[in-house]
C-alpha cells in the first residue's frame, strides 16, 4: 500500500470526465467522533493511542466502503508521502505532523477516516462538484456503520463529545471548495467574505485554516456545530453556496462584457504563458490555471477540458511534483518539473475564443 498508488489511481477529483462543475470544485462533509472510555488523542498516553488506532483501523477495514482500502500509519510514512496526502486533503497537517495518527482511505478516495487526530475519528467524505445531500448521505451511512461497531462518546444534552468545544454537538463541518475569479476580478471578494463570516460561515484558503486563497479558490464551511440539526447546518451552507454561485456568474458576465477583448486577452495570455514557460512557481501556475478554469466555464475553451485544469491544480502542488519525480527537488527543480508537466498537458489545448456562457 503506497502513496504512489493514490497518485496513480484515477479518482473523480482529478480524472473523472463530467464530474467537474463550474464554480464549485468539491463538496466535503466531516464528522468528529470519539470512542467512549478513552482519553482524547491529545491527552492520551502512547499506549492508549496505540490501542485506539488498532481498534479503529480494525473496525474501519471491516466495512464494505473500505474494502481494499489504503491504510497509512503516519509514523511509517516518509515526509514527502505525508505531504502528498495533505495536499490531496486526505489528511490534515495536524495528523501528518504527529507519529501516532493513521488514515484509512477508500479505494476511490471519496471516503477517508483520520484516526488519532484531535479526535479519535474524523470521518470525511468528498465529492467533485456540488453534491451536498449525496455527500452527506454517504457520511451518515458511514457514521452509522462505525457507530454500530465502536462505542461512540455521546450525551443527550451535548451530542457527540469532542476534544474541542468548537466541534461538540453534531461534530459536523460541511464545506464547499469554490472558485471565485469573477468576484475577485470585480473586487467584491472582501465584501462577500465579510457577509459570510457575519452569518456564521468560515472562509478559508485552498489548504484550509490559515492558508492563502491561491488560484481564487476558497473553502466555505459552517462554524456552529451545537444547537442546530445536521439538516439545518446543511441548508444554511447550501443556501449561501447557491447565492455565491449566482453572484459569481453575475460578476463574470459583467467583467467579460465590460472588458470585452481585454477579458479574452487575459485568459489567452495565461494559456500562452503556461504552454511555454520553462519554470513555473506553485502560486503562478495556480493563478494562471484559475484563468483557464474560468475560460472553460465561460465557453472560451471547451468545457470538457476542465478536468485537465483541475488535475493540474492538484498535481502542481510541491509534494505532488516531487512524488511524481520520485525524489526531493529544490525550488528550481520543482518549478522546472511543474512547467514540463503543464506544457505536456496543455499541448493539444485549442486557442482561447470569445465567451459563450
Amino acid at each position, binding site marked *: 500500500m503506497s502513496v504512489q498508488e493514490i497518485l496513480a489511481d484515477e479518482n473523480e477529483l482529478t480524472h473523472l470526465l463530467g464530474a467537474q462543475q463550474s464554480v464549485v470544485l468539491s463538496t466535503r462533509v466531516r464528522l468528529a467522533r*470519539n470512542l*467512549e*472510555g*478513552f*482519553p*482524547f488523542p*491529545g*491527552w492520551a498516553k502512547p499506549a492508549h493511542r496505540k490501542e485506539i488506532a488498532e481498534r479503529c483501523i480494525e473496525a474501519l477495514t471491516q466495512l464494505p466502503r473500505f474494502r481494499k482500502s489504503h491504510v497509512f500509519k503516519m509514523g511509517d510514512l516518509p515526509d514527502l508521502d505525508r505531504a502528498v496526502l495533505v495536499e490531496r486533503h486526505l489528511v490534515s*497537517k*495536524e495528523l501528518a505532523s504527529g507519529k501516532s495518527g493513521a488514515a484509512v482511505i477508500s479505494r476511490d478516495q471519496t471516503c477517508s477516516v483520520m484516526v488519532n487526530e*484531535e479526535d479519535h475519528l474524523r470521518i470525511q467524505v468528498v465529492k467533485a462538484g456540488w453534491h451536498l445531500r449525496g455527500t452527506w448521505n454517504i457520511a*451518515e451511512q458511514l*457514521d*452509522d*456503520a462505525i*457507530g*454500530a461497531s465502536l462505542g*461512540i*462518546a*455521546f*450525551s*443527550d*444534552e*451535548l*451530542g*457527540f*463529545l469532542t*476534544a*474541542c*468545544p*468548537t466541534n*461538540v*454537538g*453534531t461534530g*459536523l463541518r460541511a464545506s464547499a471548495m469554490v472558485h471565485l475569479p469573477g468576484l475577485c476580478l470585480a473586487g467584491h471578494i472582501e465584501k462577500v467574505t465579510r457577509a459570510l*463570516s457575519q452569518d456564521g460561515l*468560515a472562509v*478559508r484558503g485552498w489548504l484550509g*485554516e*490559515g492558508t492563502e486563497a491561491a488560484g481564487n479558490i476558497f473553502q466555505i464551511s459552517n*462554524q*456552529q*456545530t*451545537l*444547537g*442546530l*440539526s*445536521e439538516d439545518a447546518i446543511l441548508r444554511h451552507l447550501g443556501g449561501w453556496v447557491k447565492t455565491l454561485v449566482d453572484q459569481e456568474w453575475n460578476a463574470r458576465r459583467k467583467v467579460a462584457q465590460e472588458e470585452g477583448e481585454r477579458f479574452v486577452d487575459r485568459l489567452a495570455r495565461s494559456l500562452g504563458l503556461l504552454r511555454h514557460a520553462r519554470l513555473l512557481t506553485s502560486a503562478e501556475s495556480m493563478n494562471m490555471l484559475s484563468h483557464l478554469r474560468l475560460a472553460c466555464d465561460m465557453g472560451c475553451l471547451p468545457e470538457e477540458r476542465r478536468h485537465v485544469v483541475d488535475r493540474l491544480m492538484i498535481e502542481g502542488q510541491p509534494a505532488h511534483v516531487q512524488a511524481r519525480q520520485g525524489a526531493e527537488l529544490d525550488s528550481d527543480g520543482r518549478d522546472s518539473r511543474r512547467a514540463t508537466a503543464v506544457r505536456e498537458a496543455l499541448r493539444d489545448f485549442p486557442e482561447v475564443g470569445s465567451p459563450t456562457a
Partner: protein
Amino acid sequence: MSNPLKCSVCDAVATVHLTQIVQGKVTKVDFCEACAAKGGAGDAAVFKLADAVNKVTAGPAITCPQCGFTDVEFRRRGRLGCPSCWQVFGVALGGLLTKVQHEIQHVGRAPAGTIPVGQLRHRLLAAQQELTAAIAAEDYETAAKLRDEVARIATQLDTL
C-alpha cells in the same frame, strides 16, 4: 526590556498578535506560532475561543477523576482530556459554549441504535409551538395532527 507577551492558549512566548476592531471595540489576542497555525489566525472564532477559554478557569481547581485532566490544562490547550471531562467541567463550559456555539443543547443525530433524545425534544418544542399557532388560526385539522404528534413524542420521552 519588558516581558514578552504570552500565548493566550498555551502560555508560550507569543509571536502572532491579532487585533480585532468590531464597532469600535478593540480586542487583542496573542498566540505562539503553533497555536496560531492550529487555530487559524485571522479567524474571528479564534478571538471568541481564546477569550472564553480564559474565563472558564476563574473558579477553584477541578480535576477529571476519569483521566486526571485539570482546568489549568484546559486553559493551556483549549481542548478537553476525555469524554467524561464534559461532565466534570460542565458548569464552567456552559458559558464558553454560549460564547463559541451560541447554543447549549444538542438537537441533531444520535449514534446508531440509540434514540435521538435531543432531536425528539427539539421536535416536541417545535410541534407545541405549531399546535398553538394552528389553534390560533382555527386550523383544527392540522391542530389535531399536531396534538397527536406531541402526545406521541411526550410518551416516547417519558418511557426513557
